[in-house]
């Protein structure tokens, strides 16, 4: 196989130098901006986390790992982690599998497949802000639909977003309507399952439910797994929805890691502790990402 463009060997020395340096000149600006806008801040977070940070007289006094140690000792920090994991668990349980189910059954439809898949896109177009506006009204203790439904079935009226026990459920629940881009991703994966396999399986009597269970699902397990890891890493960084729904409350019941960090510097003005939490979160997400990349590479080979 001939390498397509690399023709340096045939050129003169000056041209060779130009070909060597030119690509890096092209990349110079993007690299500088990436370093400046993304890598520098995370290093700065690590740096600030070692200081009793003073925004006026930066960077304040050096305290070593004290920020981390005091943070680990506070119960609220671990509560934020446990909240994060409960969110994660609920997200996987309630919202993650819905698009898969929707895509599987959508694929079974003969008619209206295209129209339905367009309609499935709609939830992706509603920004979180508007979702929050709508669902806060649904969960309203006095006028909301949720209490009407609960009372219709003979249940007790609930406080929903003001109830520390229920707030996490209420924040994740809007996800059960499913839809979004993921449905289309799964659908395209399902449609890419080789028709030969499906046909030969059908000859062996593997149709209907069996086909879904034994042929389709195993063939799309890779994309499901990748989406799962992406969902886990997104849920770890959850910030917007809990903040907009309940601002981390009531009594800290919806405080995720993101909100913990935000409150640390915005409410408590403790920049050192906020940075320490940032670094820990970064490490956890990094580990998740490495697992993801590991499996992706394994699958490719």
């Amino acid at each position: 196989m001939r390498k397509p463009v690399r023709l340096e060997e045939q050129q003169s020395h000056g041209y060779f130098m130009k070909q060597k340096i030119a690509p890096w000149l092209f990349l110079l600006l993007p690299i500088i901006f990436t370093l400046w806008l993304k890598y520098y801040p995370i290093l700065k977070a690590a740096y600030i986390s070692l200081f009793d940070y003073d925004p006026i007289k930066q960077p304040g006094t050096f305290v070593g790992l004290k920020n981390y140690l005091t943070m680990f000792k506070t119960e609220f920090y671990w509560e934020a982690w446990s909240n994060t994991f409960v969110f994660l668990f609920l997200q996987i349980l309630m919202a993650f599998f819905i698009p898969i189910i929707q895509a599987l059954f959508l694929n079974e439809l003969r008619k209206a497949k295209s129209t339905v898949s367009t309609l499935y896109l709609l939830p992706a177009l509603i920004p979180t802000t508007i979702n929050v506006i709508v669902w806060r009204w649904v969960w309203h203790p006095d006028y909301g639909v949720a209490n009407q439904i609960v009372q219709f079935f003979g249940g007790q009226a609930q406080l929903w977003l003001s109830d520390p026990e229920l707030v996490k459920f209420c924040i994740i629940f809007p996800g059960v309507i499913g839809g979004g881009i993921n449905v289309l991703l799964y659908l395209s994966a399902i449609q890419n399952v080789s028709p030969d396999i499906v046909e030969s399986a059908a000859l062996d009597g593997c149709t209907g439910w069996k086909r879904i269970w034994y042929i389709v699902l195993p063939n799309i397990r890779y994309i499901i797994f990748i989406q799962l890891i992406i969902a886990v890493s997104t849920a770890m960084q959850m910030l917007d929805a809990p903040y907009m729904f309940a601002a981390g409350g009531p009594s800290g019941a919806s405080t995720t890691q993101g909100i913990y960090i935000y409150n640390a510097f915005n409410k408590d003005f403790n920049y050192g502790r906020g940075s320490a939490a940032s670094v820990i979160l970064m490490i956890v997400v990094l580990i998740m990402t490495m697992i993801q990349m590991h499996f992706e590479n394994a699958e490719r080979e």
Partner: protein
Amino acid sequence: MKKNKQTKVRLSGSDLSLKIVAITVTVISLLLIMFPFVLTISNAMKDNTKIYDVPPKLLPDAANSMSVAVDYTCFQGTPEELLAQMQDDMVSTMFGTYTILNRESIFEIKFYGTQDGKTIFYGRAHQAQLQLEKDYGIYEGTVLKNQTLLYKDRGERAAQTIGYEYDPNGLTRRNAPQELQENAVTLLEQVFEKKFKLHGEISAATTAKHNSLLFESFAHYMKLPNYMYSRNETVAKYGFMTFVMNTVIVIGFAIISQVLLCSLCGFVISRLLSPKAGKWMILFFLGAQMIPFASIMLPQLIMYKNMGAYNNYTALLLPFLYPYGFYVYLFKGFFDKIPGSYFEAARLDGASNSYLYTRICMPLSKSIIALIALQTFLGNWNDFFWAWMVTERQDLWTLNVALYNISNNVSTKQNALMGISLVTILPVILICLAFSKQLKASIMSSGVKG
């Protein structure tokens, strides 16, 4: 033979049950997806009293339009005094009806002033308009009754804002109703029982149903930002469009910068670097994108503030000025597939790198550019936290920030909020429906590669 047949029957039964379940699940899913929209539309069309009804109704009540004619034939005085009286009466009638008859779904009030059988004064207000004046305008924080309504020059100011037509010789285009409908009179009697008074005498009153008035509410909901943030000059002038413009600026900038930067990086990595260096560069860019926003928001805020990038467009736009790793990766994968002969031929003719990039790569990559633009749009359409952290000035707010702040304001009414939300997403939904074919194709093609 018999056994064989049985198997066949059983299998088709399984197929049938799958089909039924598939249709049921899809229909339920679609109903669930429609639920937020239905709720939003129905709430946006209700009036401020009806949205608090328990149990909530799905369909809004029919909208009523009330016309009131007041006669001033007995009035003795100058035309200016007459005008002042009619202004006062119009304001009393409108706000009186709005306050006392809040359960009657009166969405529109028309006020006619007559003298000697001629219609000389006409004013008209939509309920949502009165709501705005009550919440943020002239009557902000007042208990509505005749004394407060007309205190000092308030009556005149309110009349000016609502708008009226006046001609002492008679308005040619407006004709006051003649009839005194019984139900309308009973309603008006309630209004003018205690709190509200009129100078003239009611000569005619009618009610009629006009459901198109429900849609007119939206036009007034859109003015909410003008009223709510009237102290900010830009918002007071352009209102909701300020936020739309900011969103367009931010998303437009993000799309342009991402397409340019990522395609450039993808081109260099795919065509000019050695495979090993290319791999490291991809990792470098992907790694940057993996850093969670929650982890860097604090140092980023400090850094931006130190640079003076706070509360201005720089703060909003700067975060998009680095290439997103995933998009670089997509571009690289795309450019890898362009046949090398294209480049070799151009190279031998002495084409420079920038020529290869602008004249060969870019024209070929329309589909991938569309995909990146779409992904950037969907990503930023949702973006909230950073824009919210760095903007204090209302004229910098993007739609998400504005909606969040409006929704958190205690005096915001739910129907107005729902109305604004609906107007915000409707254009995007319509555009997406119009281009749904291309949209789905590009999403699905990105999925195949994983």
